[in-house]
């Protein structure tokens, strides 16, 4: 069971959980704020829409195509 840091809070999830699922397990599910200020959450779940992009260990990554790993640092865009 990997434990990651989501916006500074520790979160333990089942093996194989995607970061997109973790956003909802450990927070309100949102990933980013749009150019006009709307809160957004994962939409397509399959790497197309880019709504779920977050910063993972300092890199811009798609939450829906990234599996949670122990010690991973995930930051959503406020």
């Amino acid at each position, binding site marked *: 069971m990997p434990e990651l840091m989501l916006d500074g809070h520790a979160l333990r*999830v*089942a*093996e*194989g*959980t*995607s970061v*997109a*699922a*973790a956003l*909802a*397990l450990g927070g*309100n*599910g*949102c990933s980013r704020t*749009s*150019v*006009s200020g*709307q*809160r*957004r*959450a*994962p*939409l*397509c*779940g*399959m*790497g*197309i*829409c*880019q*709504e779920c*992009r977050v910063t993972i260990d300092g*890199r*811009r*990554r798609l939450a*829906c*195509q*990234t*599996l949670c790993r122990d010690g991973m640092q995930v930051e959503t865009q406020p």
Partner: protein
Amino acid sequence: MNEYADLLIIGAGPAGMAAALAAAPSGARIVMLDDNPLAGGQIWRDGPQASLPARARQLRERLQSHTNIRHHRGTRVIANPGPKQLLVEDDDHGWLISYDKLILCTGARELLLPFPGWTLPGVTGAGGLQALIKAGLAVRDERVVIAGSGPLLLASAATAKKHGATVLRIAEQASFASVAGFAAQLPRWPAKWLQSFSLFNRHYRAATHVIAALGTERLEGVRLQQQGKIVELECDRLACGFGLIPNIQLGQALAYAIQGQALAVDTWQASNHPDHFAAGECTGFGGSELALVEGAIAGHAAVGDVAAARQLWPRRARWQGFANALNQAFALDPQLKSLAHPDTLVCRCEDVAYAALAGHTDWREAKLASRCGMGACQGRVCGGAVQHLFGWQPSAPRPPFSPARIETLMCLDDTPPA
């Protein structure tokens, strides 16, 4: 780090897996890449809350048993810098792959159409919700409405229900006559017929479509037009997808011919370019059985085993029949073109509203005037929507095809000028 493949396969869903396995006995050096963490595509998506069918597990094991198949996970195509060469990127590196033969198995994505409220957190694609649940999303005791079109709605509902959600409504836009007509044909494909019983849900309604997602900060409810009447339901999630559209962007960039909305291929799954093939949903939506047989034909043909490829033609024809019945039954109602209001966002990356697009004559003009389709998804979501709404054919993408790291683009430094 550059790489060479006798056969390069883009996509590790059913078509890509079948192509690799069909080509493997030739001894060819095969490279298969996919942007997901595991092989299986969308239909066989693995995860802590997924149960993979035996068939998928078996194919995966067979792939691993061939030492001449290399599978790059989490890897996407960024550019096509020269003939028979692609620039790719994974989590850590970028590199160039040169190839002799190429098979595109890039699959399909959901058609997501804009309606008021569709950008609210809590609204996902129909397949999107299913993918998120398989990947570990908890939906226990949540109230879910599923809307749009096609058999994926029932599959998504079954997954949500299995994981403890209350599915309040499944809203299918096609008429009852269309759905019943399709169901009546199902005994022609017995496995599909049996599957349909397990997916049946008493909350399924034909001739019903979403009008708006309701809520301020996040989804609180949904307004439906249900068989002519307006119905409002309070819910926690709305999963909405209007069928599948082929992923043809990479094929377009490689100058594959297009037929309708899909990549055009001949009986060998070959495109109009020598040595370039395509198989599965990117050549037209048809389900995993069709993708498997098309992939196998492409794999055999790519390594020159025409006899083995030809033997599979009857099986392909049988599943093409299923695909045709499906596409006919779930054709979209023209009413769905009027769901968006003038202030409804169509492009979610650049937040471009419907009113900023209406009145333009084509996709390019609309893009230049509004930035529609110029954000992070590069028109993969709104491009499908404007094609449905206005009949605009999205143009071939230009590299980089996905957001990429600078270090990856610097790999191009090694290539001599064309």
